[in-house]
């Protein structure tokens, strides 16, 4: 294809969903313009590009928007040459998609629930839920990780690594803010070891912020909610 790709990513530094897309673009070695959105003051471009959900991330490719992080990651995977993000085998693809959906449908609402909880009881309930869900991930993925592979994607990071890995810095933030250990070497040894490798990965290092930034953002959200 002639000409440079015109790629613009509307994101948020602390959004795991935006981070996934940045990692996918990084894996493919594709350059893009990054635009940090202010969720308290959404840009006209964001509202016009994602009228349905009004959320980040949005990837705008040659002026055409793609929305929803998992849709964008698959789009990037299919469009650009380079290391594959989803595996080639249909059954392995279905498995990767299943666990990615599980992370988004079960795990993420649970840990976000810890943050949003307004009472100690609610917090404890959400923490228990999160630990139960992460336990399911640890057990089910024991086979995958036990065969000696470094990542869910094999020797290099793939779809599920990106989807789950993009949340890890928030787990660190939650440890600091709420004293909850979601992944730890005692209860979830395989995930803990995988998390270490993920953090050291070059693609992750480039775009995953420190827990501090997440803590700051959470405080900002809480202040805004209290001000209402």
């Amino acid at each position, binding site marked *: 294809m002639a000409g440079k790709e015109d790629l613009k990513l509307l994101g948020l530094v602390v959004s795991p969903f935006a981070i996934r897309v940045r990692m996918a673009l990084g894996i493919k070695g594709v350059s893009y313009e990054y635009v940090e959105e202010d969720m308290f003051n959404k840009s006209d471009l964001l509202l016009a590009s994602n009228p349905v959900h009004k959320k980040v991330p949005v990837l705008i490719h040659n002026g055409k928007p793609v929305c*929803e992080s998992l849709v964008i990651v698959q*789009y990037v995977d299919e469009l650009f040459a380079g290391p594959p993000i989803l595996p080639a085998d249909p*059954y392995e*693809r279905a498995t990767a998609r299943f666990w990615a959906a*599980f992370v988004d449908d079960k795990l993420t609402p649970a840990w976000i629930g810890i943050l949003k909880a307004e009472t100690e009881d609610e917090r404890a309930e959400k923490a228990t839920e999160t630990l139960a869900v992460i336990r399911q991930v640890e057990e089910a993925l024991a086979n995958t990780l036990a065969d000696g592979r470094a990542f869910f994607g094999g020797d290099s990071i793939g779809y599920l690594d990106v989807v789950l890995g993009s949340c890890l810095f928030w787990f660190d933030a939650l440890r600091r803010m709420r004293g909850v250990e979601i992944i730890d070497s005692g209860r979830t040894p395989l995930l803990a070891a995988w998390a270490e490798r993920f953090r050291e990965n070059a693609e992750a290092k480039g775009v995953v912020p420190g827990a501090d930034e997440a803590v700051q953002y959470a405080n900002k959200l809480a202040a805004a909610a209290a001000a209402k």
Partner: protein
Amino acid sequence: MAGEKKGLQLLDFWVSPFGQRCRIALAEKGLPYEYLEQDLRNKSELLRRSNPVHKKIPVLLHGGRPVCESLIIVQYIDEAFPAEPGLLPADPYARAQARFWADYVDKKLYDCGTRLLKLKGEPQQQARAEMLEILRTLDGALGDGKFFGGEAFGFADVALAPFTAWFLTYERHGEFSVEKECPRLVAWAKRCGERESVAKNLPPPEKVYEFVAGMKKRFGIE
């Protein structure tokens, strides 16, 4: 391997729109399979073993290996059996649009519908307003196209088509007319219904209504 169509089983429940997506996809691809109706009040060992995480239908078993979650199953069917017709278009941007709208249906329609059917008073009015918003959004996305992807029936159509059997039920509970609010969506539903894959795999809308009425009675919702 290419052309191997043996060993397909679908664990399903007759009225489930999620199961129907899989039946439609299998029919579109001309794939024979064994349909195994599940008793959801007394879940089988096979279902529990095949979907230990969610214990839900639908589950597609291919050579004994389970695939779970309806849209994942539909994509698996498309990728494992790549012969025409392709359920997802060839163009990556068109594929992204199809996935976006299938995801939208998943995130919004069923939950809102459940609230519309179960609740009363103000919460039901809220659900009604949301349902109209969802249907209008889908109507807008369809535009004047024949199907969501354009000329060809595809992934987003498969994702939404089963819910057309629920329109009557939504209408009666919400006291609105889908035809009045979203005429293009109703015309699209008719076109879908003309396809054998859809016609043979959706229950009559009155049967869905009866099913919901029965469920409400059982759970003491009036």
